[in-house]
């Protein structure tokens, strides 16, 4: 029987809610495991879940330096979409979308996945043409996409300024109806519980301080809670990839760490029931079920491992918000925060075996990692279990940069702060 159901809610309510089990145990680390996953964020936990469920590998530890989900899985703006141009990205993110569509049922945990749509606004005829091209590329690979006219957009988002004297008048937009949002904490907790119930040890407050090696081969990790040996060590620490790989003696990576800020306003009555993105800058917004508007913009634009940003980006994001929604001028911002992103050299991620024997690497998510969580875990688990990538993540190698096989959806070149 499902752990969470109408019946179990009722039964536990009648018993005074005394019998609920914690969603995951707090085990001490064992001396060795088949697989250690470094990083207890969304991707690491999803990897542990799919290793156990799809591949029957349950002697697994997830080691996390802080508390579970304290990093980027709880810092993003929760948008889920698969509206990419290049086939490698489209296929991968569409696989993720299909996993999202069944995730609450799969995990028996309500991740509040809400397919409210994601609308990219176009502000010039050329941009609208470009969106048509991307929409066609998506539909060609079986992903839903539709162009929207100004009048349709006005009906969908009445508060949007679509007048001709707006700073950047809206010409049209590209809508993916199946896109949407999910509750990010629930994703981490749901995967954690699913992995825990299948025997995975989730070890919090356990920081990796070094790698155990036998020659080149990685044979385990040193942590703040002692040495732990493993046949396979998987790294899923996007944001801190540079620091962790340096512990393994890998000096350079095709990655820069940058800080991305996000914001939430005070709670409002229903204001917008889709995800909207601005096409003449970098701004995206949705409304949470609590009523707060959740929004963000560009990264700060300089290397940073600090989980906080500076004022120029705050100012820019607010300006962009008001260019689209002048009516929000007097709404108060409640909170802002920052998360550290692995900005890769082509804007696409890395999910691969290596680079050292016994090691597996999942990184380079730029600021789009949340929507990838299910497929990232699914593909990474496959790669770890079978020692080779699945077709879906085969293009996302580490050596693609030096081999001239970059996957640059935005066409920005090797300039990570622009992806």
């Amino acid at each position: 029987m499902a752990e969470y159901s109408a019946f179990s809610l009722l039964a536990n309510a009648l018993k005074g809610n005394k019998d609920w089990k914690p969603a995951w145990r707090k085990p001490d680390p064992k001396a060795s495991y088949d697989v250690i996953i470094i990083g207890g964020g969304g991707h690491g936990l999803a990897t542990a879940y799919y290793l156990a469920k799809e591949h029957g590998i349950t002697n697994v530890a997830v080691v996390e330096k802080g508390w579970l989900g304290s990093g980027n899985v709880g810092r993003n703006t929760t948008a889920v979409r698969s509206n990419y141009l290049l086939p490698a990205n489209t296929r991968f993110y569409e696989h993720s979308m299909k996993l999202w569509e069944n995730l609450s049922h799969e995990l028996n945990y309500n991740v509040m996945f809400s397919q409210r749509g994601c609308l990219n606004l176009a502000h010039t005829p050329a941009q609208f043409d470009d969106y048509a091209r991307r929409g066609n590329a998506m539909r060609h690979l079986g992903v839903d996409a539709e162009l929207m006219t100004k009048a349709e957009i006005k009906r969908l988002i009445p508060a949007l300024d679509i007048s001709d004297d707006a700073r950047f008048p809206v010409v049209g937009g590209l809508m993916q109806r199946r896109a949407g949002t999910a509750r990010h904490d629930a994703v981490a907790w749901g995967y954690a519980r699913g992995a825990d119930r299948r025997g995975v040890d989730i070890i919090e407050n356990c920081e990796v301080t070094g790698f155990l090696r036998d020659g080149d081969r990685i044979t385990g990790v040193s942590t703040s809670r002692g040495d732990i040996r493993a046949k396979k060590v998987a790294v899923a620490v996007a944001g801190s990839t540079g620091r962790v790989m340096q512990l393994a003696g890998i000096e350079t990576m095709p990655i820069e760490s940058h800080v991305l800020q996000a914001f939430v306003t005070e709670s409002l009555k229903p204001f917008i029931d889709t995800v909207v993105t601005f096409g003449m800058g970098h701004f995206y917004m949705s409304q949470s079920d609590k009523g707060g508007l959740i929004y963000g913009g560009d990264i700060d634009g300089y290397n940073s491992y600090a989980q906080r940003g500076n004022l120029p980006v705050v100012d820019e994001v607010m300006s962009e918000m008001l260019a689209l929604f002048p009516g929000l001028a007097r709404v108060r911002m409640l909170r802002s925060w920052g998360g550290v992103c692995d900005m890769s050299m082509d804007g696409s991620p890395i999910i691969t075996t290596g680079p050292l024997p016994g090691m597996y690497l999942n990184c380079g998510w730029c600021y789009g990692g949340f929507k990838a969580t299910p497929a990232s875990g699914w593909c990474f688990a496959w790669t770890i279990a079978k020692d080779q990538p699945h077709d879906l993540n085969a293009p996302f190698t580490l050596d693609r940069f030096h081999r001239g096989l970059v996957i640059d959806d935005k066409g920005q070149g090797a300039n990570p702060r622009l992806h």
Partner: protein
Amino acid sequence: MLITCPYCGPRDVIEFTYQGDGNRERPDPASQNFEAWNAYVYDRLNPAGDHNEIWQHSGGCRTHLRVVRNTLTHEISSVAFMRGDHGRGDHGSAARRKAEDKS
């Protein structure tokens, strides 16, 4: 974040443009060493701590600056002119040196 420009004094970061990692070494433009070019274009040290970087005071005197900034605290420990610094990471410096050698 304030950057103390050697000409203009302490100014808000909004006046500056980040020009990227200052550790990179550009191969000689005539070089056909693909590994060296790949490393220059794609590979980064990306340290957590002091980082050598290049900024331009684009909203001020427009000079290029070599800045050492801590990526964990955003604290800036040194700012110097790029000019005259024919060293690492100066885009085009190799070409300029070559031109100077010929003159």
